[in-house]
């Protein structure tokens, strides 16, 4: 169990600046998730921590000790790869014991550790198999087992579940969560699946184009997104955005209090689907463009002013159909507002809207 301190980290590939100044502190025992769209540099950041890529500038400290120039083999970290990367010519047991053998650990200790890991991961009866003869889920477990036996100071996971089918993914996600409870180890986990991020993380790090957009607990980033990017990225379906036009402005003016000058042209209001209500008395109008019936709930996508699509969450058995003209209202007290550059305008801005509807 270790803490990690990343300072002013940069990574430039030949012609591409992949990591652009990352500062991050990861506490002992914390489950940190890097999340962001494809190509934003999640894997690169993880590989820099692992030592599989050379740092261009900046530093990485493990428990206060600078490891920026230490070779991957000597950092004492364990990594679980998206492709599992098991040694195809070794059995499950050999795969798991390889690192310990390299470290000249005696056979009894190795056996004990392998058996312990096999118990945790229910791999007991597969120890003699070759990776070829395992299912995807089992391979993933072996890859995790290979990390567990080493008692590494930090576990690194690069999209470990993305090759599994949906139901197995949910199951493995829960197992990983339990594993973290049990080992109390520091873990860093890369994913572009925000459900994984929200469910697993103590701390979510949202990356965009090689920079950190926001760091926070899952609920913090959900309720207090600092930028439009984060607001849009976290939450399914996505947060909807309304341009601040005269109609919206009028709505807000009718509400009392607050500094209404902030509602300038070019700003955006962001609304989560649960805060859009379709009701006959709603002041805004739109056309239903898509209805998704998910069973427990139904999602209605409304086209507003011919160009803006808003998602609303309605009760499961709602009779709304595609093409319907609907009136809707917005819980203005729960709206976020963003400036032209996508930065959130101070949280108080939304307060001025409180009191309407």
């Amino acid at each position, binding site marked *: 169990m270790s803490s990690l301190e990343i300072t002013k980290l940069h990574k430039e590939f030949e012609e591409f600046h992949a990591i652009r100044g990352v500062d991050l502190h990861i506490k002992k025992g914390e489950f940190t998730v890097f999340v962001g769209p494809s190509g934003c540099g999640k894997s690169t950041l993880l590989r820099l921590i692992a030592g599989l890529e050379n740092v261009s500038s900046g530093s990485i400290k493990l428990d206060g000790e600078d490891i920026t120039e230490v*070779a991957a083999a000597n950092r004492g970290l364990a990594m679980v790869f998206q*492709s599992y990367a098991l040694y195809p010519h070794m059995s499950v047991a050999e795969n798991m014991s390889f690192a310990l053998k*390299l470290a000249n650990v005696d056979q009894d200790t190795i056996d004990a550790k392998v058996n312990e890991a096999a118990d945790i991961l229910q791999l007991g009866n597969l120890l003699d198999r070759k990776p070829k003869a395992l299912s995807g889920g089992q391979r993933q477990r072996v890859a995790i087992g290979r990390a567990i036996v080493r008692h590494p100071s930090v576990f690194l996971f690069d999209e470990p579940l993305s090759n599994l089918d949906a139901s197995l993914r949910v199951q493995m996600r829960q197992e990983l969560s339990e594993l973290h409870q049990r080992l109390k180890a520091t873990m860093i986990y890369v994913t572009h699946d925000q459900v994984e991020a929200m469910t697993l993380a103590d701390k979510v790090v949202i990356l965009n184009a090689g920079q950190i957009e926001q760091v926070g607990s899952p609920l913090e980033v959900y309720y207090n997104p600092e930028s439009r990017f984060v607001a849009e990225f976290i939450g399914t379906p996505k947060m909807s955005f309304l341009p601040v036009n005269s109609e919206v402005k009028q709505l807000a003016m009718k509400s009392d209090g607050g500094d209404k000058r902030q509602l300038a042209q070019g700003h955006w209001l962001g609304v989560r689907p649960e805060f859009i209500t379709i009701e006959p008395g709603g002041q805004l109008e739109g056309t239903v463009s898509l209805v998704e019936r998910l069973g427990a709930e139904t999602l209605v996508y409304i086209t507003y002013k011919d160009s803006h699509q808003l998602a609303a969450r309605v009760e499961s058995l709602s009779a709304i159909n595609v093409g319907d003209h609907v009136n809707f209202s917005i819980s203005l007290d729960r709206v976020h507002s963003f400036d032209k550059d996508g930065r959130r305008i101070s949280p108080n801005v939304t307060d001025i809207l409180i009191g309407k509807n």
Partner: protein
Amino acid sequence: MTSFKTELQAIAVPPMFAFEPTLENFSIVQERSDYMKYAINSVITSFGATFLALVIAVPSAYSMAFFPTKRTKDILLWMLSTKMLPAVGVLMPIYLLTKGAGLLDNVLSLIIIFTMINLPIIMWMLFTYFKEIPKEILEACRMDGATTLGELRHVVMPLSWGGITSTGLLSIVLCWNEAFWSINLTSADAGTLTALIASYSSPEGLFWAKLSAASTLACAPIVVFGWFCQKQLVQGLTFGAVK
């Protein structure tokens, strides 16, 4: 076939297909020159050169396959292009170099030259075999605490063992059959079997039957060797396909 005929039968026109086989040629060949000596030279040069080439090529191919730079492709192509240069072109300089080093008619010079001749092909083959190993497996190995040598020993070599052996076998066969350099740089002491064959087409005349006998003797070991290794070869060629 011809090697089992007498000299007269051998040059008969039209060629004879039914004849009394004779071993006479073989014994003459053996009498005139010590077959075993040439054979041993062949073995030493081909195995020695192959071993040396592998020792050089495995680490180089490893670094080219797993740590490619912008120039890696160019280097590979350049290496292959050296194979296109006719050997005669460099005969003089190499002959003089060997002479200068006092290594004329010496097995060592042959080993060095054979190594250099086959190195490009060996590098290419190993490079392609290594390329098939997923990069993540090596990275996993590094994370597990292995040094570069450990990576080679525990992962790269076992995973491409089939490829390495077939490359080695190919190299042995190529060295064994290499005639140009052994004829030009050796005579009695370090001569290989190919040099022995060549000695039968001498200014004193062509001895078809004896030439064939010598050829048969020269080819026999490598054919037998190849036959025994066939299983290994086939295994090697298919091993990489299963991940």
